[in-house]
């Protein structure tokens, strides 16, 4: 015995399943959309009704951030293309001398190079501070000894200045 439901056209079966009740129909229509927003089926039907609002807001925020990230990535890729073309440009010159070579392409991504430069700068600052501290301590010790010697009746100031 043939099942007539199998002969139905696309879309007809969906219309037959659609609820006659307005609120139920609305919920069933919006449920897949909110599942795209990240809500689970159980949360949509059994959770607090106001969660839907936050899921919608979170989805829009996620799309905005994703858009900004994509924009940055596309810009960065453009930078790499630009660098590649510029580095290779010497050999594209029509009257380039024999033996002309392209400029070397960077060994590492821009982010790694920038991070390493930033780390070195911080290390340099720390080293500079240590050196300054040591020099100050030496100067302080020397000055203290000098005035201690004067106080104990050691060499007078004029003899030290002449040296």
């Amino acid at each position: 015995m043939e099942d007539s439901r199998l002969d139905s056209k696309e879309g007809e079966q969906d219309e037959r399943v659609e609820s006659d009740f307005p609120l139920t129909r609305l919920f069933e229509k919006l449920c897949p959309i909110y599942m795209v927003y990240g809500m689970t089926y159980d949360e949509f039907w059994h959770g607090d009704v106001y969660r839907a609002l936050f899921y919608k807001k979170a989805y829009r925020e996620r799309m905005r951030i994703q858009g900004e990230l994509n924009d940055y990535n596309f810009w960065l890729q453009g930078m790499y293309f630009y660098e590649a073309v510029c580095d290779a440009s010497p050999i594209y010159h029509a009257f380039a001398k024999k033996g002309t070579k392209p400029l070397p392409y960077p060994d590492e991504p821009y982010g790694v190079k920038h991070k390493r430069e930033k780390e070195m700068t911080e290390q340099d600052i720390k080293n500079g501070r240590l050196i300054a501290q040591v020099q100050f301590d030496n100067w302080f010790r020397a000055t203290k000894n000098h005035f201690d010697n004067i106080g104990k009746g050691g060499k007078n100031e004029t003899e030290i200045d002449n040296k």
Partner: protein
Amino acid sequence: MNTKIELEYEGQNYTLEYDRDGIRMLESRGFKLEEFLQKPMTNTELVFQGAFLKNHPNTKLTTIDEIFKECPDKAGLMSTLNKMITDSYNSLLSEPEDDDPKKVQWKTVDLTPKKESKTKE
């Protein structure tokens, strides 16, 4: 965030609230939103029963009916249940608050000519 009704009956605490599955069941039992919005005092017992479906689905109908009879201020109760039901679909259709400063703000400007009042001396 959900609006809830908390009550105590015979030593037991009840929290009444709606979820979308509960409203779907209400509609399958004959609840009609349009009728309820226009005449809030229709289908009152059905609406009240529906509020038990989320947190107390196994509560007997006779118990629910007794609780409903004992509840004071039925008009206020129906008003609250009305709000809870409308929240279930308003939360899907309303737009979240936007903090974007570039959002367009508009206001009406009254450009109707104003008559100057001549004062007689």
